[in-house]
């Protein structure tokens, strides 16, 4: 494991907030681990524990087989010796230094490099991140994207062994976010250190994550490779928190392993999906289906057939892909404008989900 961190940290209640307990076990071998969750879930606290700016009450932090923290033996490596590159919210470039001085500060603080090597590394990094022309400027004279490049360059000066990024794209518009993801690609050419990135942006998580830890109220609700977490939410709460699923209550009516088939009753409609191992007939649970895979059957007068539902339309609003239709039972479907033109005005719409896209979670 490149990162194996068990962290317990209790924060006493303060004036405005209740007591908080962080209790997580972060294990990841991936290049990029994303901590995804709402604000107040403890994402930044986890990052601070890894970087050495918060001391866990209990636990153990192992990064690249190096012990950073060990509760029982009271070992605690100071931040200076952990060699973590940390990108803070708002970047924390030193405001009284120019970009070059920021990098030089990092180079001088790191040990074991000769003066010539340091100089060469600074020049290289300024070049890589297209900062050569801006090197003489102070952070206040830089745009958001430029600051970000400078912060990444500064972080890489000392060849960090662990990269920690705290909501690096907060406050950037879509185009600048894309540029940032490209920059991270560039960063990979210079550093192979594992990265832990904190975000509450689902799309960012999809874009970058190898390993995902979903966080809520100081706990991981689910961890694993990205595809797995998004395709197989551990329970209905996780599926809800992801916000990409239509979720409906369902009961298992029949199971047939021979034909790899199960029958579910969804809103009194019979659905056929693949066989559900480890389930029993009569099990209650939920079917989850991606909103993006929930299709609207536009022209059809036939009653709802298998894997279909006839649902009342509640509202429709324009979206990036066309129209976003809100149906009863909080079902959401996205259709193109052409499709919408055909079914505009109908009170009820028939939706259909391919059986392979239906995922059943137990209660």
């Amino acid at each position, binding site marked *: 494991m490149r990162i194996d961190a068990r962290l317990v940290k209790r924060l006493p209640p303060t004036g405005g907030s209740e007591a908080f307990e962080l209790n997580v076990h972060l294990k990841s071998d991936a290049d990029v681990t994303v901590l995804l969750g709402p604000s107040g879930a403890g994402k930044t606290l986890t990052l601070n524990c890894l970087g050495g700016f918060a001391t866990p009450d209990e636990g153990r932090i192992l990064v690249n087989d190096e012990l950073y923290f060990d509760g029982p033996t009271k070992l605690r490596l100071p931040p*200076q010796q952990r060699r973590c*590159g*940390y990108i803070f919210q708002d970047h924390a470039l*030193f*405001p009284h230094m120019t970009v070059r001085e920021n990098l030089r500060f990092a180079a001088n*603080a790191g040990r074991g490099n000769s003066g010539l090597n340091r100089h060469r590394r600074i020049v290289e990094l300024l070049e890589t991140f297209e900062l050569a022309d801006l090197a003489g400027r*102070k952070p206040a004279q830089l745009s958001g994207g430029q600051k970000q490049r400078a912060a990444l360059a500064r*972080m890489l000066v000392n060849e960090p062994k662990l990269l920690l990024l705290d909501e690096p794209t907060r406050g950037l518009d879509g185009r600048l976010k894309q540029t940032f993801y490209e920059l991270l690609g560039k960063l990979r050419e210079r550093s192979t250190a594992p990265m832990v990135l904190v975000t509450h942006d689902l799309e960012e998580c999809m874009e970058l994550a190898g390993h995902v830890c979903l966080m809520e109220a100081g706990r991981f609700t689910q961890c694993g490779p990205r595809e797995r977490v998004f395709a197989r939410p551990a329970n209905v709460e996780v599926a809800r928190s992801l916000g990409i699923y239509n979720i409906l209550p369902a009961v298992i009516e029949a199971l047939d392993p021979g034909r790899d088939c199960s029958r579910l009753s969804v809103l009194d409609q019979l659905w056929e999906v693949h066989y559900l191992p480890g389930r029993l007939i009569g099990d209650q649970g939920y079917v989850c289906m991606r909103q993006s895979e929930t299709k609207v059957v536009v022209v059809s007068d036939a009653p709802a057939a298998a894997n279909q539902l006839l649902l009342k339309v509640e509202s429709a609003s324009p979206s990036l892909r066309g129209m976003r239709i809100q149906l009863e039972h909080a079902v959401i479907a996205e259709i193109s404008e052409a499709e919408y033109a055909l079914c505009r005005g109908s009170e009820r719409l028939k939706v259909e989900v391919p059986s392979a896209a239906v995922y059943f979670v137990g209660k």
Partner: protein
Amino acid sequence: MIDWFPLWLSLRVAALATLFVLTVGTLVAYLLSHKSFPGKNLVDSLITLPLVLPPTVLGYYLLVIVGRHSPLGQLYEGLFGQPLVFTWQAAVVAAFLHSAPIYIKAGRAVLETVDTRYEWAAHSLGASEWRTFWRVTLPLAWRGLSSLGSLSFARSLGDFGVTIMVAGNIPGQTQTLSVAIFDAVESGNGRLARILVIVISAAALALLWAAGYLSRPARAQSAG
């Protein structure tokens, strides 16, 4: 002919006292703002004490602590070959005591306003705490601290009570400006008193203006 010695002495005393305040005071303010240690509240109260005690009480304590028969006083005498009390150096100690508490209390607040993220960033880049203090914390707090230094200088210039207790009123040796004014009024020399009062008021006003100038917010500069 006016004897300008008291003005010259006061400036020298205030300058030295301010130097001590800037070094010792900044260090103490940093410890109070960045470290937690047992008895921190007690230390804080001890530092505030000189602000509320009458100068005579402070002077009395000083006489006891650094007087000729105290261990500290004897150490000083052994090191410098002369006693501390009733010399102009004692006036420096008095001025220090007069201005340090305010500097430390306000300096602590200034140092606390420096965003910890800058210090964390420096630490994560491998910079020691000492280096971070010199290269990051101090430059970012510099405006506030130098403004406070200017205030300290003005305050050091004006100490009377403690100075007269520990340094006395020896003309040509320990008679600072504020003591000279007291002396002039006592002996009915109204003209001298008026001139010295105007001088010290002008100096104080200039220093306050400088403090305000130093602490004004930096002009906003942004490329947008």
